[in-house]
């Protein structure tokens, strides 16, 4: 059986080479993300669903364009991701790779895409290096990044009166970056950081750290962590009565799927930044209603919405250019203003950063929630031009 699998794989690769010649004339979109582990809920199958919806809404079939969407699971392993990407570009004639959560994999594919001179639209990865020192003429970073989340949440909270902060930081590069970016904006806006504690990644129990946060008497506890760590710290903060005691929690990287996992009873009052909320307007609601049945009844996360928006804009650029040549399409995408039902109007900057409005949201109380997935109150809208890191500060060599 195992040998057969091996042979099957070999045959699949061989076949790939064979139909390579007829692949021209087809626009092949490869959705590459985590489908089996930590980030499967924020991107995963849902991102592929979103990509297919974008192809459909663009009306590719009517316009006589052949568009094909394929997907793969990179298992959060950069080698696997990079091997699939190379094979996609070289053998399967994939024209553009989208999504790719997990910074290490996204950075690796950023590199491969540049080497093979194709196109890469990032939605799932958070690292702002993609439009900073690692920026590339072949890459656009679509949905969000760490800088934007930290600054959006940090400045908005300080402006509404949360002056003193205590950080709960995941002790690795990603957590440090979130903490640094947020602290910078907190201090700049006249706030004060009373203390911080570094917790190890995947620390099951946060009560010890939460007690330290509690005794600091800070108004806001900033959670510079992600995923399971954020969920566990919020859950235990509610248990230890931090929110009841008058302290507020600010999440630096939270998705709607996390809120769904926590339940409103635990998550209520949490403040963070998102670039997409399904219940924001009629267009987003219409999209979500079509999306949910195709994805186990779940509402789209901002990452999945970003995949939709990115693919749509990509196809528009290809149509305008009548070519699917990687860097040319990316250049065209930067030139054309963006407009879609989910993110509204925006543009793509020279450093590859797509900019659009961001929203500071607060999680509703259970009593305020009227229907399933009715989770957020939008507290503030951060205009596109302010939401993201100024082009000059990123250190991207493409910006002159």
């Amino acid at each position: 059986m195992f040998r057969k699998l091996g042979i099957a794989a070999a045959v699949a690769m061989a076949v790939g080479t064979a139909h390579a010649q007829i692949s021209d004339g087809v626009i092949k979109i490869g959705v590459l993300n985590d489908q089996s582990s930590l980030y499967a809920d924020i991107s995963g199958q849902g991102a592929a669903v979103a990509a297919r919806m974008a192809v459909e809404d663009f009306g590719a079939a009517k316009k006589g364009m052949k568009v094909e969407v394929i997907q793969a699971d990179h298992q959060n392993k950069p080698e696997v991701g990079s091997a699939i990407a190379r094979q996609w570009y070289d053998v399967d004639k994939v024209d553009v790779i989208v999504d790719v959560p997990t910074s290490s994999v996204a950075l690796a594919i950023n590199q491969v895409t540049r080497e093979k001179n194709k196109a890469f639209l990032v939605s799932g990865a958070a690292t702002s290096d993609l439009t900073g020192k690692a920026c590339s003429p072949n890459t656009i970073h679509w949905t969000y990044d760490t800088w934007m989340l930290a600054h959006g949440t940090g400045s908005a909270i300080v402006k509404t009166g949360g002056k003193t902060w205590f950080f709960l930081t995941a002790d690795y590069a990603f957590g440090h970056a979130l903490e640094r970016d947020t602290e910078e904006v907190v201090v700049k806006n006249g706030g004060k950081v009373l203390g911080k504690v570094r917790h190890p990644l995947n620390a099951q129990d946060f009560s010890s750290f939460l007690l330290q946060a509690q005794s600091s008497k800070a108004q806001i506890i900033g959670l510079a962590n992600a995923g399971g760590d954020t969920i566990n710290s919020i859950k235990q903060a509610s248990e230890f009565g931090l929110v009841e005691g008058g302290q507020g929690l600010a999440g630096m990287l939270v998705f709607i799927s996390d809120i769904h996992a926590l339940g409103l009873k635990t998550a209520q009052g949490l403040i963070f930044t998102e670039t997409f909320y399904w219940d924001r307007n009629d267009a987003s609601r219409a999209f979500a209603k079509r999306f949910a049945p195709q994805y186990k009844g779940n509402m789209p996360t901002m990452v999945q919405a970003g995949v939709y928006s990115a693919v749509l804009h990509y196809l528009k650029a290809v149509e305008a250019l009548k070519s699917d040549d990687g860097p040319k399409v990316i250049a065209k995408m930067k030139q054309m203003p963006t407009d879609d039902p989910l993110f509204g109007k925006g543009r793509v900057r020279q450093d590859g950063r797509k900019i659009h409005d961001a929203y500071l949201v607060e999680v509703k109380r259970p009593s305020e929630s009227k229907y399933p997935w009715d989770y957020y109150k939008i507290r503030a809208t951060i205009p596109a031009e302010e939401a993201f890191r100024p082009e000059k500060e990123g250190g991207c060599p493409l910006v002159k």
Partner: protein
Amino acid sequence: MTEIFGVPTQALFGQLLIGLINGSFYALLSLGLAVIFGLLNIINFTHGAQYMMGAFVAWFLLNKAGMGYWWALVIAPIAVGIFGVIIERTMLKQLYKLDHLYGLLLTFGLALIVQGLFRNEYGSSGLPYSIPSQLTGGQRLGFMFLPNYRAWVIVFSLVVCLSTWFVIEKTKLGSYLRAATENPELVRAFGINVPRMITLTYGFGVGLAALAGVMAAPIYSVNPLMGADLIIVVFAVVVIGGMGSIMGSIVTGFGLGVIEGLTKVFYPEASNTVIFIIMAIVLMFRPAGLFGTQR
């Protein structure tokens, strides 16, 4: 306010208590592993997955059957225990005559399957589970706010651990169990059904993991991977304690919880590694573990 190394004594008490609570989970899990290892000579790598299953059963009961936490506390260990019994009867049974490493590999594979299936079905970000209404709120102890639920965890797990110890070390049933590990043929000669006893022991050890899972559900995130990393820490706890004694695994579990808790105050960066560092030190001086006997 008095201080120890710059930390107020009162805060220190709080941290000690919290360490003890975390220790309860280590103790319950390492106890289950120790019981299974003692009788079956198998390192149960599926333990983390079974802990997770316990939490999920609690969630099922609440959301599909409307049965709350207290029901879960009884039903989940039995349900997951039965799952364990099936595994023992159909798979593990075939491995007793082979090198013990095969048991480790089999249970590792099972853990991958179980976690994978749950992840496919329920996603990776987890499911909500609240603290039972009888145990919400907490006590202001002067030096800290102690949630009632945490107090319950510590008391209940102590009771479970000590009763297990009592049954195995002090009762007739326990003496059969212990004898069966030493010399199964002889015990069989006394007319005792040794294979059934082994099966039930595995089921019991697995049930302990599930019980820990139910207890974890209201405070930790209920997600398919919740036991995946925890199990490695518990392995280290077991290595430190040594596999020889039931009491050893209980004492080490609680003790290491406290040490880890203190590390979180004085040097939080090392709180994930401190148990492994202790393990290295213990191995240097007592390769068989603190309470273990070399075999």
